């Protein structure tokens, strides 16, 4: 997978999420299910590495990029992680103008709730795969 594709896919996942781990469902869909660039196990490892490291929770995408395309992928993932954060600058201005409108606020709230539901589903998939991996590792030891 090329670094540019990694950047575009991760940017899509990150830009449509509202929490560090919120990008996980879209990454699962794009990298594991659609493009088969990563196995479920590799994605779980990326999440694990992200959690074992101090810093932003969403930085696990760097590990995703590394596993999908090596160092260029890691750099692309780092850039993809940083890009949406720059939206904070115009958002400071926009928030003062539009967020008091009930419909705008309700739409934002709905996106946050939906991303939490997607995150729960990803958590269940992760746990199921880790459980399978644990069982197979135990079998191979015996």
């Amino acid at each position, binding site marked *: 997978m090329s670094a540019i594709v990694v950047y575009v896919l991760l940017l899509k996942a*990150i*830009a*449509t999420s*509202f929490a*560090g*781990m*919120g990008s996980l*469902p*879209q990454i699962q869909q794009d990298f594991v299910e659609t493009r088969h660039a990563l196995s479920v196990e590799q994605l*779980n*490892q990326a*999440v*694990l*590495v992200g959690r*074992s490291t101090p*810093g*932003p*929770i*969403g*930085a*696990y995408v*760097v*590990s995703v990029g*590394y596993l999908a395309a090596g160092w260029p992928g890691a750099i692309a*993932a*780092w850039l993809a*992680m*940083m890009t*949406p*954060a*720059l*939206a*904070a*600058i115009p*958002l*400071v201005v926009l*928030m003062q103008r539009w967020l008091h409108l*009930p419909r705008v*606020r*309700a*739409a934002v*709230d*709905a*996106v*946050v*709730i*939906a*991303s*939490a*539901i*997607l*995150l*729960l589903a990803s*958590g269940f998939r*992760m*746990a199921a795969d*880790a459980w399978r*991996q*644990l069982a197979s*590792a135990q079998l191979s030891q015996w």
Partner: protein
Amino acid sequence: MELLRRTFTANGSLDEADNAGLVAVSRLTPGTNILAYCVGLGWSLHRWSGALSALVASSLPASLIICVLTAAIVRVDRYPAVRMVLAVAVLAATLLVFSSAASLLRPYLRRPALVRASIVAIVSGAMLLADVTPVRILLLSAALGAAISGSARPSDVE
């Protein structure tokens, strides 16, 4: 975020009102909240140079460590004992995924927002079961949220 607030309010660069605004912006910015908070803080202190240096400083060290750790795990992953330890660690990490989801939902579990939040959650869950892609689920949820907002007040949540 709390550490940044304490540091910058202590030296007078930030007041509580500014901090509240930055927290709201960080919640509304797509992606990782802490990065958006740092960009907002950097911007309010030194405009572009502040925003960019805050962004790099808050993301680069962790990213480098993650690359090194990932490379190390890839090398030792073939050993069954290592795989077993990793599987247990992944199971523990799933707890964090659940807690992230819970912290996103928590503000909506109070009475005025609960009904609308439940409707959005049920519809999102149904779309998920129907194999609708995550991006479409988020877009349709936003449309649904705006459609059912009715007489909602901004103070309903938070």
